[in-house]
């Protein structure tokens, strides 16, 4: 198995506060890897560093052996490492379908001038993006609402739309930021299937999550952070009985879900 994404000794400081401290792990092609940890463990910061929305203070992130940390986010996205957002971050004023079509931007063969004059390539692109968007929306069961304005959708569908936007960029690695947060049992179950289906399309998935049950069910491997440090790494089974992890979660006030029978 080739290592697609390598996180090496990444440290991120904000002033005096160390949010991520010397964390290393890697993700192989086709894997689903999750990063978990109690509140304030540094998950989100690490996520932003990997997607290059933040520069690491020390260490680096490599994709296919090439250093991507420090590059502009859109360049990282062009290389195939695409993130979704924890918040319901979508293009609120556009229709669902337009949201997905615009996300095909990266696949475009024509340049902007070509689109402006309506060149043959540009028209071909437009037609193809429309088809592809419909296909993605159907794949995620969003076909029925594709002409709704995004800001009117309920929470769960927005999350799916976020994933649809991510998929439309044709990513090699999809970084999902808390895809199950705020979902009820049934919604989570559906979302888990969705993520699996995404992997079936050949997309490697790295997700940051809170919800232990879902993570245990879905992940090939799990990385556990606490206070910015990596305290464990392994398969769900290994993590489940790792005493350090149990202690970390018990030690925190509000995290008791899923770990203990």
């Amino acid at each position, binding site marked *: 198995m080739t290592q697609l994404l390598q996180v090496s000794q990444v440290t991120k400081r904000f002033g005096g506060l160390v949010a991520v401290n010397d964390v290393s792990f890697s993700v192989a092609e086709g894997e689903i890897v999750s990063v978990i940890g109690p509140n304030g463990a540094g998950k989100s910061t690490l996520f932003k560093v990997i*997607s290059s*929305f933040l520069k690491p203070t020390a260490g680096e992130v490599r994709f296919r052996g090439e250093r991507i940390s420090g590059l*502009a*986010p*859109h*360049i990282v*996205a*062009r290389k195939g490492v*695409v*993130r*979704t*957002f924890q918040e319901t*971050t*979508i*293009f*609120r*004023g*556009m229709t669902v379908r*337009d949201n997905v*079509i*615009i*996300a095909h*931007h*990266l696949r*475009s063969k*024509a340049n*902007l001038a070509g*689109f*402006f004059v*309506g060149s043959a390539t*540009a028209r071909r*692109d*437009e037609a193809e993006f429309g088809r592809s968007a419909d296909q993605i929306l159907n794949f995620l069961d969003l076909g029925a609402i594709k002409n709704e*304005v995004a800001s009117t959708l309920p929470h769960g569908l927005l999350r799916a739309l976020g994933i649809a*936007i*991510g998929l*439309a*960029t044709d990513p090699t690695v999809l970084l999902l930021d808390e895809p199950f947060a705020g979902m009820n049992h049934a919604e989570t179950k559906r979302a888990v299937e969705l993520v699996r289906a995404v992997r079936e399309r050949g997309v490697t998935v790295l997700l940051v999550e809170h919800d232990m049950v879902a993570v245990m069910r879905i992940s090939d491997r799990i990385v556990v952070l606490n206070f910015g440090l990596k305290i464990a790494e392994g398969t769900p089974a290994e993590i489940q009985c790792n005493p350090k992890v149990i202690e970390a979660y018990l030690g925190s006030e509000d995290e008791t879900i899923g770990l203990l029978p």
Partner: protein
Amino acid sequence: MSPTKKLAATAAFLASVLVAVPWAIAATGRNDLYYTLTSVALLSIASAGVWLTFYIGRINIGQGAYALIGGYTSAILVVDYGVSFWLTLPIAGLFCAAASVLIGLPILRLRGVYFAMVTLVLTEVARLLALALPITHGASGMVSIPAPGAIRLFGVTLVPDFATLQNPRLAFYIVSVVLMALCYAGLYRLVHSRMGRLCLSLQQNEELASSIGVNIAWLRVVAYAISSFLGGIGGAMFAAIAQSIYPSSFTVTDSVNFMLNCFLGGLGYVFGPMIGTFVLYFGWDFLFQTGEYQLLIYSSLLIALMLFLPNGLLSLRPAAKKRG
């Protein structure tokens, strides 16, 4: 809208402004309307630029600066270097675009009121520069700029020398409305092509846009450069009509007016700034007869408009869509 319909609409528009309006003016003898409509056309070109910056989510109160730079570029080239006005017109636009890239790179990182403020200050900086730089002839401005000359190609006169014309107002009017038509056709095309969608994605969420691979910094600069290009063109045309330019030819008031034109027409509609400029300019002109109460009535009407149509005049359209 189908291509044929679009073509028909464009033809109808051109026919009305190039044939019907001159005919109506000739029939009524209202020759002063030429200049009024010319002003509207040119101001709406500059406003279109401001609208485009609104479209990427930036409040631009700095268009006066580019109009001033454009006006001076053209005037200096014509007066001091003897370049033909018709050549200076695109040069003025391009010079403004180039300047706006340099200025835009640092300031486009700002958002909201901060960007608005910085651009407002930019207008004042441009005025003070025009006063201080030797090349602009400083406080005494530039006067007696020659009228646009002829364009000849292989001995055929394509455009006559404006100085020899019976009615240069009509000539300026035609040039201005043609420029306006080109500008809005281009803007319409741009907004309805991929670039427009990308600009919209920027307006709605810059982070998400960059996560799907949009080079937001580049796109912002491009949009801003186009915007400034339009400002420069408008300014250069005005300098040619007034045959003079002063550091105070475009001021903060103009910058604010360009912005208000966009608001009034509607930020969501490509043709918003055109309608906005028309209504604001003519509204003021209309009230000319009310003498000292002009400003009072004008502002009251504006407030009423905002109360009833807070999303701009074009939101009146029954089939109003989100995007124009």
